[in-house]
């Protein structure tokens, strides 16, 4: 029964529904389909990044460099666009994904080959990537009038009533749903996070799987970098500053265990949507946007406390070592 209806996701979905009902009781316009579509579109970058982060966290790692990766890729593609305005969008997209993947690979190599703790690696690369943005841009902004119209129009282009940005999130969700459930890579991610020793004995290379998880996360950050810069039509050093925490928050709220091995695509998406709804609802219900940071912080704490409670009763690990209970 609990296999058919994942408990955690159901509770989270219910929480989002209650939240929407509460808001709509005072502001009916908020749950109009067009507004909900707007909220989804606004949350799309968070959804894409949360899915990448999910894969990394599932393998017992963490990627704090996603926002810096996003900003660096965004700056690079914006500068390429300024230098070569004629370059078609698919090429830009390919460059963004590739560059992001390369940065993810740098994280992955350091974790895989040198077994440096992921948090140290990505804290370091986070500042390095931000610094590189300053070096290549000289601290200057790339503004909308310098970008080509095609470059900025792409994420806004409507297909079947939804902008491309939303479609990017939807396609990523579908691809990840297939990848996590139906491919060898997806299953090995769970195996590595659930029990690395057992994974080794089943012939899975733990380090290599972690490496590819970082590459996936990096590639998605790169993709989001282009979408972000073209959507807001500006690129500078500090774009998406601190966004990595929101991404981790979305995962934690979505029930992805920071200890690895537990989590689902649905959870990550719902976690991101929860934060997206809160963010979009604050100005509507007339609360200062300065509350956003404290609310997402509290949401992380509540979610992690709640998840560890519900996880404890399930007895997932039979021979749980005493060390883990400390």
């Amino acid at each position, binding site marked *: 029964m609990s296999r058919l209806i994942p408990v955690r996701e159901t509770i989270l979905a219910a929480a989002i529904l209650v939240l929407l009902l509460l808001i709509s009781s005072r502001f009916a316009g908020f749950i109009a389909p067009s507004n909900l579509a707007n909220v989804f579109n606004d949350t799309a970058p968070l959804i894409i990044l949360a899915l990448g982060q999910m894969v990394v966290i599932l393998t*017992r790692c*963490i990627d704090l460099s996603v926002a810096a990766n996003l900003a660096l890729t965004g700056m690079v593609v914006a500068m390429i666009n300024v230098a070569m305005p004629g370059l078609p969008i698919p090429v830009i997209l390919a460059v963004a994904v590739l560059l992001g993947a390369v940065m993810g690979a740098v994280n992955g190599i*350091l974790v895989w080959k*040198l*077994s*440096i*703790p992921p*948090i*140290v*690696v990505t*804290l*370091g*690369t*986070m*500042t*390095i990537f*931000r*610094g*590189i943005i*300053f*070096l290549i841009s000289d*601290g200057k902004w790339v503004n909308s009038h310098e970008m080509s119209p095609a470059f900025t129009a792409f994420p806004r282009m409507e297909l079947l009533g939804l902008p491309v940005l939303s479609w990017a999130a939807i396609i990523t969700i579908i691809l990840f749903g297939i990848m996590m459930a139906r491919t060898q890579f997806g299953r090995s991610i769970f195996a590595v996070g659930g029990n*690395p020793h057992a994974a*080794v004995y089943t012939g899975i290379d*733990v*380090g290599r799987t972690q490496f590819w998880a970082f590459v996936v996360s990096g590639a998605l950050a790169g993709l989001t970098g282009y979408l972000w810069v073209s959507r807001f039509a500006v690129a500078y*050093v500090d774009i998406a500053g601190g966004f990595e*925490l929101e991404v*981790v*928050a979305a995962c*934690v709220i979505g029930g992805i265990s*920071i*200890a690895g091995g537990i989590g689902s695509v649905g959870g990550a998406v719902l976690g991101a949507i929860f934060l997206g709804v809160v963010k979009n609802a604050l100005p509507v219900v007339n609360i*200062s946007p*300065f*509350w*956003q*940071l*404290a*609310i*997402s*912080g*509290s949401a*992380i*704490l509540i979610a*992690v*406390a709640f998840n*560890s409670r519900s996880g404890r009763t399930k007895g997932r690990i039979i021979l749980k*070592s*005493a*060390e883990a*209970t*400390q």
Partner: protein
Amino acid sequence: MTTAPQTRHVPDRLNSRAARIFKSWEALLLAVAIAIFVINSFASPYFLSAWNLSDATFNFTEKAMIAFAMALLIISGEIDLSVASIIALASTAMGLALQYGAGTPELVIIGLTVGVLCGAFNGFFVTVLGLPSIVVTIGTMSLFRGISFIILGDDAFRGYPASFSWFGQGYIYWVFTVEMLLFVIIAVIYGVLLHKTNFGRAVYAIGNNPTGAMFSGIRVARVKFILFLLTGLMSGVAAVCLTSRLGSTRPSIATGMELEVVTMVVLGGVNILGGSGTIPGVVIAAFVMGLVTFGLGLLNVPGIVMSIFIGLLLIGVIALPRLWAMAAARRTP
């Protein structure tokens, strides 16, 4: 955690004490610090000046105060990423108290109390609820700074009393600042606490083997809780110094400082996975980082480019010994 069981190399006899000291991480770090000092004095004519060097200490004194407590926390196998946000909240609380007419002693007490309370909050989630410290402190990192933003918005608190500026701007004697004195006192306290007391031994024991520590009668949860309190307290002290030095409070105060504190601790030879590390190492690391950023500053390198060096330093100090070991392992089959 990924490899199969390894065979362990057991030497026939232990190295002599002198050889151990000479080959230690601290000795290497000290050599690096001296090299940076020499390079800097050649690179810029303004480096070797007592007043300039005195100003340079502000680059690291506040961070180092937190780094000492953080070193103990990391040795015990936990981490606190919320220290910069604790500074923001403590500073905001002091600013708020100022609006209600608090004087300098009250301001200091409030700053330190808020720091301790924030540490207790982290400690509660980690030790009582048994949650991983990394997630808890990522959460409180947003929460504490978020509360500052709620209170302050895009505003700032100013107008701290003149006597309050003593902590961050005062001098004890000639070029020696109040912060330097605090830095030395705190370094000695933590050095004694970690290396000369039962509590310090317990911290190492917990970091090496929490289960073993528990079975040898150490109250693991209580020690960890105290370490979170100490980290909070030190963040409070740093908040007093920083607020006093800047003379104002904004909610974005000390943004990103947690990274520099962790870098300082790791650079000081503390194992990020817990179990080993020393206070003298952290002291030298503080000087290394202070000298690097000060030297680069004299050469007109912008702050964000310096952060590249900090990032490279953080990864480099962990990566190089491992590369070294890998190369050595390849040579001797």
